[in-house]
């Protein structure tokens, strides 16, 4: 009997799964076009899966092995199942291989079940809770029905009753594994995820690359939508990416806004986008909600607004505006996502619509954007006072010099009295190292970072074009800045407008000066120092080493926090979050300061004006917040003997 039922079951399920796949593809194709290399993407997909994706999954070693066993076992078993039972290939070898695959898968499923027994809160429940059972059903059912084909037991073994039971078990397993893959269910991640990897919007991210700059809007075309107002405004491969989510909640566990009780949960946001794409409500969502927002009240479809115009009083749509404005664009979710989903792109796309179509940037947003348009800085300061901080420093101006080795990009911190101390320290270091540098002076404008992340692409592009025109007038080897936000924008986002530069963060530049032995430095004698990685230097640009090297150069042994390096937690100052200021239960910088306090540090070294401001805004008693430039400048000594020491240090470091 099994010989008759199984082929029908397997091939029938395959056909239905194919139908489901076509429907799913239709859902993705509601999105806007996005050019990708179809064949190239498909060809690169196995490597992207086995290397890039697995590298992220393997941060959780136990689960990575679980997934290898379950997923690998399933893929092998599925292919063999189709051959052995679908097409009835008479081959002992294949049958034994199928049995082996089902055993491996069963072993993996045991671990999946173990994890599901008491799952961490970040994991979604609902249909995901039945997945281990379905895996068992599939693995054990396939194992048992293959025993006769492998010749272990006679074909008639067990009679009709057992055959019937086995058929049901296999049918359950196949329904979950084959139909669930394309009709929606936990296994959807396998189908959508594979295609998402193939057609990823940022293929540069694979193979160890990095792609973090936001994609520009085409403002020249009046027909092009200004950001994303409804799910169909996303590109098709963004929609595909949302479907790839496995709801593992690693993003949720990393999100500073979620931890602070602000109404954002990256996992829920992606699931809401899936709801929007397919139509319906979020009632079926079985994970942590947006803090303070009950599940089941929001919904929408691909062609209706994601956020209601005019705020939250007048009903609800797919998400509330404050969810989108809670994000600090710290990229912790993107860094952590094993499926390489681009949460920040999606959030900024939707913010663009809110700012450029609704004209509704919350709190100080309106004021900041108006200031940027009329005074070229977010604070509304007189642009002619940009150089006031350096009135006594006699800084060389590019307009007078025309060229210099290093262009010192001051950033808007030039207007901020706290950051002026950092800038003055940096100038002291540059002068001590006899660096040939110059500044743009009042010609410098805001880099456009805040405008862009608040969704005002028009203001960003205007600032970028004017800055690029200014920079084009002068010759310089590289730009050095103590502001990671300017650094990121100049390095990664101006390129789309035909302006590319060599840009260094001041920590990178200082550590290279140390390596060349151009700084005579004393030894740090203060207390314990920890270092807070700025998101826009670390996760956005992969620079984790240089700041630590610079600190090591003055004899500081950095005591790292639990969350540091690529897992550093945001200070709460990115993405215009201090401007939109969405209330939560706690403040993000307070949480970060707790982590700093846990290291018992006396000083926290920072490398970003935003981080400085956010961390210094935490009430005392707390460690002192000092920029790397300030720490290094304080150790500058005039004696050339010390230069020898510095050289020796570097030599040690090279040897080490």
């Amino acid at each position: 009997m099994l010989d008759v039922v199984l082929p029908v079951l397997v091939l029938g399920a395959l056909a239905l799964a194919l139908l489901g796949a076509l429907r799913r593809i239709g859902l993705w194709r509601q999105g806007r076009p996005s050019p990708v290399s179809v064949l190239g993407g498909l060809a690169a997909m196995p490597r992207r899966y086995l290397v890039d994706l697995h590298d992220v999954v393997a941060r959780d070693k136990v689960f990575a092995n679980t997934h290898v066993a379950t997923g690998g076992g399933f893929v092998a078993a599925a292919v063999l199942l189709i051959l052995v039972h679908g097409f009835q290939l008479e081959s002992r070898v294949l049958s034994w291989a199928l049995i082996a695959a089902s055993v491996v898968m069963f072993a993996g499923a045991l671990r999946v079940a173990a994890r599901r027994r008491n799952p961490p809160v970040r994991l979604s429940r609902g249909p995901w809770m039945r997945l281990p059972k379905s895996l068992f059903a599939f693995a054990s059912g396939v194992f048992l029905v293959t025993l006769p084909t492998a010749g272990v037991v006679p074909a008639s073994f067990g009679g009709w009753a057992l055959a019937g039971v086995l058929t049901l078990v296999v049918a359950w397993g196949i329904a979950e594994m084959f139909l669930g893959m394309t009709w929606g269910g936990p296994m959807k991640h396998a189908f959508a995820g594979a295609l998402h990897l193939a057609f990823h919007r940022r293929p540069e991210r694979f193979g160890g690359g990095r792609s973090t700059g936001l994609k520009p809007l085409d403002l020249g075309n009046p027909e092009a939508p200004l950001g994303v107002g409804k799910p169909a405004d996303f590109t098709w491969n963004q929609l595909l990416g949302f479907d790839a989510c496995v709801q593992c909640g690693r993003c949720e566990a990393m999100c500073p806004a979620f931890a602070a009780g602000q109404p954002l949960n990256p996992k829920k946001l992606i699931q809401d986008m899936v709801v929007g794409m397919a139509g319906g409500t979020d009632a079926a969502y079985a994970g942590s909600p947006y803090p303070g927002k009950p599940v089941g009240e929001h919904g929408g479809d691909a062609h209706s607004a994601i956020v209601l115009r005019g705020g939250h009083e007048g009903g609800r749509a797919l998400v509330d505006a404050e969810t989108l404005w809670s994000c600090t664009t710290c990229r912790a979710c993107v860094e952590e996502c094993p499926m390489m989903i681009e949460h920040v792109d999606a959030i900024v796309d939707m913010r663009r619509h809110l700012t450029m179509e609704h004209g509704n940037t919350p709190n100080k947003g309106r004021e900041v954007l108006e200031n940027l348009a009329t005074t070229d800085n977010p604070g509304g300061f007189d642009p002619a006072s940009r150089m006031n901080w350096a009135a006594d420093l006699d800084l060389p101006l590019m307009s007078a010099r025309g060229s210099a080795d290093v262009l010192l990009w001051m950033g808007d911190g030039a207007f901020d009295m706290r950051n002026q101390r950092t800038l003055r320290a940096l100038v002291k270091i540059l002068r001590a190292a006899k660096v040939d540098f110059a500044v743009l002076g009042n010609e410098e404008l805001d880099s456009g970072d805040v405008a862009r992340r608040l969704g005002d692409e028009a203001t960003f592009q205007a600032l970028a074009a004017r800055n690029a025109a200014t920079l084009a007038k002068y010759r310089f080897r590289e730009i050095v800045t103590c502001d990671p936000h300017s650094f990121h924008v100049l390095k990664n986002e101006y390129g789309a407008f035909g302006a590319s530069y060599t840009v260094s963060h001041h920590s990178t530049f200082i550590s290279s000066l140390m390596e060349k032995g151009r700084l005579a430095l004393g030894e740090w004698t203060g207390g314990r120092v920890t270092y807070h990685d700025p998101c826009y230097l670390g996760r956005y640009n992969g620079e984790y080493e240089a700041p630590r090297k610079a600190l090591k150069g003055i004899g500081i042994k950095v005591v790292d926090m639990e969350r540091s390096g690529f897992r550093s937690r945001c200070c709460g100052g990115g993405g215009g979050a201090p401007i939109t200021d969405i209330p939560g239960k706690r403040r993000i910088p307070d949480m970060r300061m707790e982590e700093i306090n846990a290291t018992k540090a006396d000083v926290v070294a920072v490398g970003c004006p935003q981080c400085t401001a956010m961390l210094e805004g935490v009430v005392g008693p707390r460690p002192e917040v000092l920029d790397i430039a300030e720490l290094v400048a304080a150790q500058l000594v005039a004696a050339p003997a010390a230069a020898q020491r510095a050289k020796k240090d570097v030599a040690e470091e090279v040897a080490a």
Partner: protein
Amino acid sequence: MQRDGNRNVTGQERVKVAALVSVGRHPVTGRPRRAEYDARAVEIGLSLATGGNLHLAHAGECSPESEAALRAYLGMGIAGVDVLQQPAGADIVPALEAWLRELGPRLVLCGARGETGEASGLVPFLLAERLGWSLVCGLAAVESVDGDSMIVLQALPRGQRRRLKVRLPAVVTVDAAAQPARQSAFGPARRGGLQRLDTPVTPDGDAQSWTTAPARKRPKRLKIVKATSARDRFKAAAAKAEGGGGQVLTGVSAQAGAEAILKLLREEGVLR
């Protein structure tokens, strides 16, 4: 976190509202922008008239710089602005009067004063005079509008408000007491239209004979605080300006009134 500017005023169905807008000038950088008070007038207009019932007019030149500033009004969600083309040195009042007579609005909203040109704040008064309509200055909010009248709050010094019932049609001026203008969005600003209208030009004869000079800071009477303690200084800083020497003249003849005014001006040293 949401703006609360679009609460609609009751009873405003089908009220035709006009707002007169000018090109502003940023106080620090001098860049063209939407004028602060005009934008507040438009904001009130948006709360009164939904959809096509709010009409905007600008009388002046339409250069590329001023176009960007006018588009900032469009970005508040306005479909179009009528630009009455008037060269520099023209008297814009006749052109605006003709436009208003043709449009026939029940309510005309103006900023209390412009940020460029003469910025005398006189245009609304001149228009009201020529049209024979009511005029209210220093409007803080419009509470309700019906066919023939509206109830408004007029701003008085130190946060005081006066509720007025105003006969329509009316010209009102809006200043800092009114709610701030909503954000201007790029999309609607780009889509909105600037309809350039050729209008008869009346040269401003008076202005041609004027000589202009940069403004000087006006002298300000010093408030001398003779306080010995911090508490006294605080009280002096927080106290209302006392109008102690004031005198209310009612039922006196024009002659007596004029004499009283003249006497005060002499005392204050305005007339010597």
